[in-house]
C-alpha cells in the first residue's frame, strides 16, 4: 500500500489532482462551520463583489457565494459518491455472478444490463424525476437513481474479466484443492477486478456530476434551494449573473466544476496507468 502511494506520488499529475481534490474536500468540510443556513437568502448585502469580508462575493439574492459553495461541493460530491459507489457494488456483484455462474443466469443478468444501456438515459431520468418528485428531492435518492444507469457497462467488463480468469490455471488448482466459491472469488479474483472497479469509480463520479448539472439546468434535480454545483449554476444563469456583471457568482460554480472534473480526470489517468495500462484502453470514453 505504501509502495503504491510512493509510486503514485512520483506522477506530478497525481500530486496536482490529489491536492485539488483534498482542497475541495476540506472546503466541503468547512461547510460545517458555515455561519449561514444554506437554504436561506437575504443573509448578506446583495450583489457584492469579492472582498475580504465576502471572499467570493455575494449573490443577487443576498447569499455569501463562498459559504454557499462549501455546501454545494459537499452535496455534489455526496451525490457523485453515492451514485458511483452504489453502481460499483452492483457492477461487482452482477459481473462476478454472471461471469462465474455463466449460462442462463449470465444471459438474464446481461440482458437486464443491456436494457438499461439501450434506454435513453437522459429521457428516463427526466421521466423519473417527474414521477418520483418527492422521493428524488433528497440527494441520496438522486445518487441512487443515477447509479441505476451506471452499472451495466462495468458489470460487462468485470464479467469478461472473470470469464478469462475462470479459464486460467489457478482457478482449476483452487477448485481442485477444495477452495469454496466465495473464498475463490474473494481471494483470487478480486485483486484483478478491484483496480477496474476503482478507476471506473472515478470516471463514474464525473458522469454523475455532469448529470446533476444537466438535471438542475432543466429544473428537475433535487430541491433547488439546496446548494449543489448544478443548482448554483442554474440560479446564476437564470438570474442573468453574466449580463448583470456578477461574474463571481457564475465563476464560482463553473470554476469549481472545472477543477473537480480536471482533477478527477487526472486521478483516473494516472491511477489506471499505474494499475493496468491495458484495461484502461477498453473503458475510456464510454461514460
Amino acid at each position, binding site marked *: 500500500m505504501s509502495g503504491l502511494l510512493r509510486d503514485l506520488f512520483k506522477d506530478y499529475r497525481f500530486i496536482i489532482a490529489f491536492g485539488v481534490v483534498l482542497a475541495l474536500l476540506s472546503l466541503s468540510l468547512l461547510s460545517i462551520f458555515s455561519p449561514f*443556513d444554506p437554504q*436561506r437568502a437575504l443573509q448578506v448585502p446583495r450583489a457584492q463583489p469579492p472582498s475580504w469580508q465576502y471572499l467570493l462575493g455575494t449573490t443577487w439574492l443576498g447569499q455569501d457565494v463562498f459559504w454557499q459553495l462549501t455546501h454545494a461541493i459537499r452535496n455534489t460530491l455526496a451525490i457523485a459518491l453515492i451514485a458511483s459507489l452504489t453502481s460499483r457494488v452492483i457492477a461487482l456483484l452482477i459481473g462476478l455472478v454472471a461471469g462465474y455462474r455463466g449460462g442462463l443466469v449470465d444471459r438474464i443478468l446481461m440482458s437486464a444490463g443491456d436494457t438499461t444501456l439501450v434506454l435513453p438515459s437522459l429521457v428516463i431520468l427526466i421521466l423519473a424525476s*417527474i414521477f418520483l*418528485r418527492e422521493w428524488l428531492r433528497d440527494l441520496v435518492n438522486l445518487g441512487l437513481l443515477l447509479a441505476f444507469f451506471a452499472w451495466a457497462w462495468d458489470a460487462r467488463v468485470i464479467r469478461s474479466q472473470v470469464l478469462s480468469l475462470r479459464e486460467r490455471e489457478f482457478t482449476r488448482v483452487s477448485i481442485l484443492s477444495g477452495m469454496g466459491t466465495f473464498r475463490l472469488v474473494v481471494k483470487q479474483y478480486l485483486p484483478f477486478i478491484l483496480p477496474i472497479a476503482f478507476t471506473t469509480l472515478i470516471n463514474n463520479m464525473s458522469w454523475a456530476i455532469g448529470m446533476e448539472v444537466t438535471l438542475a439546468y432543466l*429544473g428537475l434535480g433535487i430541491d433547488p434551494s439546496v446548494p449543489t454545483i448544478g443548482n448554483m449554476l442554474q440560479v446564476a444563469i*437564470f438570474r442573468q449573473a*453574466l*449580463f448583470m456583471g456578477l461574474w463571481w457568482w457564475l465563476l464560482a460554480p463553473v470554476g469549481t466544476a472545472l477543477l473537480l472534473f480536471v482533477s478527477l480526470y487526472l486521478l483516473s489517468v494516472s491511477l489506471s496507468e499505474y494499475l493496468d495500462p491495458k484495461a484502461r484502453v477498453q473503458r475510456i470514453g464510454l461514460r
Partner: protein
Amino acid sequence: MRKLLMALSVLFVIGSLGLGQVLPPGVPRAETLIVHSLFAPAPMPGNWNLWAGWRQNNNGLHQFATEALWTLNPNVVEGGIINALAAEPPSYNEDFTQLTIKLREGVYWSDGVPFTAHDVVFTVLATRETPALSFHAQMLEVKEAYAADDHTVVITLTRPNTRFHTAFLERWGTLRPMPKHIFSQVEDIMAFDFHPPLSLGPYVYVNHDPAGNWALWRKRDDWQRTVTGMLFGEPAPQYVLFMNYGPPESHIMAMLGHELDVFQGPTEAMLVLLEQGDTTRSFREAWPFIDPRDLSTRGPGFNHLREPFNNRDVRWALALAIDAVEVAIMAYDGMVALTPGLPLMVLPEFKEWYFERLEPWLEEFTLDLGDGRVFHPWDGEAPWRLLEWAQQHHQVDLDPTDTDAVRLTLGYGWWRHAPDVAEELLTRHGFSRGADGRWRLPNGELWRIQYLSGTDPTDMAYIVALAVMEQWRAFGITVDHVPSAAAGHLTWHGEFEVSAASHGGWVGEVWGVHPDLHIGFLSLRSDLVRPIGEPTLGWAQRWSDPRMDELVRELELTPWDDLERIIELGLEGMKLQIEEMIAIPIINCPIVIVFDESYWTNFPSPANDYARSDNFTTWPQLKYILHHLEPTGR
C-alpha cells in the same frame, strides 16, 4: 497583431452582410414590429383552430386573426368595454332568457366574404353540437339561436342568465365567431387545422415556424373593413413578427441587437436591458420601471383539505410571518404593487370601486388573540416602506406625498409583519418551537411545508415562491421546495400542501375594467369542490363557504349593468376572503416589460397611458393599440 486586426475586420465585413438577420428579404425591418412571443414554443404550430382547444393563441391568432363581440378596453384610464363586432351592448329581455345582439355592418373576412349574423349563429350552434369544443358547456344553455336579419342575432336560453354574454366578451379568451363559409364545409371541426387562418382582424397570416417559435403577420390591404380600422384607424406596422428567441439571455442579446422591439420577462433581464441598451426603456423612466397593472395576483395558495391549512389561524399566522416588503425586494427588486385581497387589482377603477370602500373596514379589522386581546393586522404604510428602501438603492421618480400615485404604483398596503402575533396564533393551536427554533406540529413532529411550484425559474410564481419560502424559513418553519413539471396536474388533483401556482381557477383574476367579480367567485362554489386525488371542478385550493355560495347566487341574479349592487356583493366576498385568509395574495402580477425604441416609438408610459403594457405581448387587444406606434424612420 496586424493579422489579428485583419481577421477581425474581415469578420466585421461578413457580419455586415447580415447573415444573422432575422427577417426575410422583402420584409423591411423598419416596417416590422418584432414582439416577444411568450409561452413559446407553440404547442400546435400550424393549427389555428382555436375553437377546438388551446392553440398558442397569443402568437397573433387572438391578436390579429380573430375578433370578439365585445372586448375589454386596453386603455385602463378610459376603462369600460369596447363594442367590437357587436354594435352595441348586449340587450336581454325582462327575465334574462333571451339575448339580442346587434352587429356592426361593413366588417369583412380577409377573403372578402362579409361578416354577418349567420357566422355568429353558426358558431353558437356548432359549439353547442360539438362536444369537446371550447365553450361547448356554456353553449348548452342555448335553446335557440337565429339571425333575425343579417346583422341581428337572437339567442334564447334554457334558463335565466344575466351573464350569458360574457362568453362572448374578450378578456383573454372568449368564444369568437368562426367563418361559417369555411367551417360549415368541415366534416369534423375538432380535427380541422384551419390552416392558413382567415382573419377578421387587421392583419393576415404570412408564415409560421413549424417548430412553433415564430409567426409572421402582414397588415390587411382592406384594414378599413375591420373593427380595428373602423374604431381606431390604420395600425402602424406593415408586418408584425411574434418571435421567441429562446432563454432570456438570448432575448437580451436580440434586443441589444435591435432585433426585438418588445420584451417581457424576469426583472434581471429588464435591468440588464435598461442599463446596456441606448434605446431601451420600460413603462416608467426610473425605478420602479414596471407597469403594475396585470389582471392577476401572485402568492402562496393553501390546500384547504389538508391539515393544518384548514385552520384559519394557521393561515393567518403564515401571512403575518411574511414581510411583504422583503418579498417584493427579493423577488422583483421591489418593483411590484402590494395587494392584500385576492381579486383586488391595483388599477384606478379597482381603487375607486373596491379599495376606497374597503379601506375603513381594513383599518378596523382585527384578529382575536384570546383573553379579549385583538390585533390590527392592516398596514397601509407598506408601500411607503418599500419606497423608502428604493430611495436608498435606486433613483426613484415617485413623489411620496402623492398618495394616489404611490398606491397605484406600489400597491394599497399589506399585513403587518408580526412574527410575534403569528407565534401566538400558532401556539394557541398546540404548535411549538423546538430547541433548534424550528416549528413543530401539535403532535410534536417537525412542521415541514411542501411548497409546490412549476420548474421554470423565470416564472413569476416560482420567483415569488422563493421569496415566500425565505420568509417562512426565517420564521422557523422548515420548507421544502418541490418544483415539478406536473405541478398543474398535482394542484388540480389537490396533491399539494402549498402551491405557487397563480391563484388559478379565476379566483385571482377579474375583468379588470368591470367590477363584476362573479367570474372569480364562481369557482369557489362548494358544490365544485372535489376530494384530494380527484380533479377539482372549481378552485384547486378547495376552499368553500356557504356564505360565498349565497354571494354567487346573488350575483347571478344581479344584471351586469347594476354596478352598485355588483360592487356591494363584490365587497362582501372580498371581506369574507380576507377574514378567512383563503390564500395569501402578495402582489399584483407585475408587467416587467422593455421597449426598444430604435425602430418604433410612442410605446405607453405614465404620461402617455393609452394601454396596459402587456397588451403588447400576450393580450388580444394588441390590434386596438398599434395605431399609436410611430416609426422612427430609421
